[in-house]
């Protein structure tokens, strides 16, 4: 067991991938000389050189597309986009090329690229650096969307993502980079399944990424009130682990979904829809969810706190569902 931070885990995974496979390289804005805007790649330039720790111009579409092309050309690029808000500049490449080429070419070409980006609010960075757009990406067939919510997942998801013959997007909630945990290293995890992080009998809390910690904290509070909450960490937003979702709802018959994205047209809406479609008769209470308020995430601390899902909000939602 090794004590390490989420940041160290991502960096360690990149380093190991680059050591074990010469086709792997990292590129993105300020990944090299600056050390990564969240210091994830700090020290890697010295170790691997500028060819493989490749600083790019501020050209999200250009370098993301180049990553797609390089993947089609036989390499295993890790493209880092500073925050998911910036990924919108690369959305054409992700959506129209990475996600479509295999199907559009009748299976002749595939795009084994990994695109990592930071997501989420809570750092008073205002409305252009704080959003959670992973749910949007989960809308797109042809890509895999990962949301590591633990240190072990942060370290363990990269290797299977690089092994995936198809594009994989990894959303790292920026608030998690400093989290530390005692983990088995090298971490070995799968990128197909959700994980039950806490077992319970009265209500299921379904969440992922940056909201996992808040949800587990809420489950602690609920336990003190005599409510036994199960916490399911989705881990993979596309393809959704529908079996795990239905299984937890079948066990507890009640469900609250916690998602830092906005609720309209969101991944939380999708999860609710699947539960209604396939688990309707399990339900012993209406579904509920705790999402970000439908505003651009504001700067002021108290407003930002009010906009994001909170432990109190999760606890209250659970009480309401249980009629307590």
């Amino acid at each position: 067991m090794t004590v390490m931070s989420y940041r160290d885990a991502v960096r360690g995974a990149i380093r190991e991938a680059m050591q074990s496979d010469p086709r792997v390289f990292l590129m993105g804005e300020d990944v090299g000389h600056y050390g990564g805007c969240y210091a994830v790649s700090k020290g890697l330039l010295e170790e691997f050189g500028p060819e493989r720790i490749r600083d790019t111009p501020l050209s999200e579409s250009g370098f993301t597309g180049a990553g797609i092309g390089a993947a089609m050309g036989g390499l295993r690029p890790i493209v880092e986009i500073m925050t998911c808000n910036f990924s919108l500049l690369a959305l054409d490449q992700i959506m129209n090329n990475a996600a479509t080429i295999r199907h559009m070419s009748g299976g002749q070409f595939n795009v084994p690229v990994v695109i990592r980006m930071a997501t989420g609010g809570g750092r008073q960075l205002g409305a252009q650096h704080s959003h959670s757009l992973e749910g949007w990406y989960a809308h797109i067939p042809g890509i895999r969307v990962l949301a590591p919510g633990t240190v072990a997942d942060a370290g363990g998801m990269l290797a299977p993502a690089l092994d995936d013959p198809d594009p994989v997007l990894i959303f790292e909630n920026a608030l998690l980079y400093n989290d530390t945990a005692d983990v088995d290293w090298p971490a070995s995890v799968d990128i197909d399944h959700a994980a039950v992080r806490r077992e319970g009998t009265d209500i299921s809390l379904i969440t992922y990424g940056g909201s996992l910690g808040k949800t587990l904290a809420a489950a602690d509070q609920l336990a003190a009130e005599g409510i036994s909450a199960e916490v399911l960490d989705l881990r993979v937003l596309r393809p959704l682990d529908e079996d795990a979702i239905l299984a937890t709802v079948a066990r507890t018959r009640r469900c609250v979904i916690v998602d830092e994205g906005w609720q309209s047209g969101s991944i939380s809406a999708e999860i609710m829809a699947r539960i209604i479609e396939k688990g309707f008769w399990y339900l012993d209470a209406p579904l509920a969810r705790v999402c970000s308020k439908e505003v651009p995430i504001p700067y002021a601390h108290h407003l930002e706190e009010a906009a994001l899902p909170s432990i109190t909000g999760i606890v209250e939602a659970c009480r309401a569902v249980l009629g307590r």
Partner: protein
Amino acid sequence: MTQASPKVWLDRQHCRELLHQMIRIRRFEEKCAELYTQEKIRGFLHLYIGEEAVAVGVMQALLPEDAIVATYREHGHALVRGVPAGSIMAEMYGKQEGCSRGRGGSMHLFDAARRFYGGNAIVGGGMPVATGLALADAMMARKQVTACFFGEGAAAEGEFHESMNLAALWRLPVLFVCENNLYAMGTALELSESQTDISAKAAAYNMQAEAVDGMNVVEVEAAARRAVAAIRETGAPYFLECRTYRFRAHSMYDPQLYRDKAEVERWTGRGPIKRFTEWALEAGEIRQADIDEIEKLVAEEVAGAVAFAEAGTFEPVADLARDVGAERRP
């Protein structure tokens, strides 16, 4: 590795080849237009007629190991690259014998065996991909060239500039081929660009750039051979602007409100097939009998392609979700 010659050798055989390829594109696409009106081909159909000299000229300079990224007006590029006419036609019929199993259609022809990385239907969208293919070649020290075709309309897209900059900055072996046909769909070049000299934009990225008469297949071929030789030697990108003209409408459903007939007639008068044929006949490089034989061969090939497409089969709907992702992952 074989090396394509940096010079054009215009012997009789090569003249025949150039003419044959241009006529293949012309007749194939005329048949496409006909089949479109009969509803055999659906979706968007963008014809290359008038611009044949560009694809035919540039392809002469490329080797089988080189890669091609093209646009949604790419039937000609695919044909000259060697994608079988039948599989292209079957693709447009939506049949599973098509070069993209019927998932792509006219705008998305793909052929892995010929390193044909598709018709891309987002203007400028193929340029970063071509840059990345060249990045892979550069990082793996492969002496290959990626030829990236796009129209002058792409010069207004950010991806054009981002790709130019990346390719020049990282010295990547990309041959950027701008097929400047003067209209981005229906918007004339001078209505969309402050600087209408497209090659000047590339030069601004510290890249070797030149503009050639895209209606002259020999001139295009000569320039392409120069460019590819330079890329293979230096590893750096090269920009070739081919000034050409689209004789047909942008797509089938286009009344061409944006240009007058006199302009179209001026350009068709100096069409690439017409000019080259006149020159080669006069120079004694080919004879009328050669042309007749080419037409006959092409007619047979086109008829064969249509028959192949007609006889093709539709993919079972049960396979709809196939190839969205890998069937097996490690």
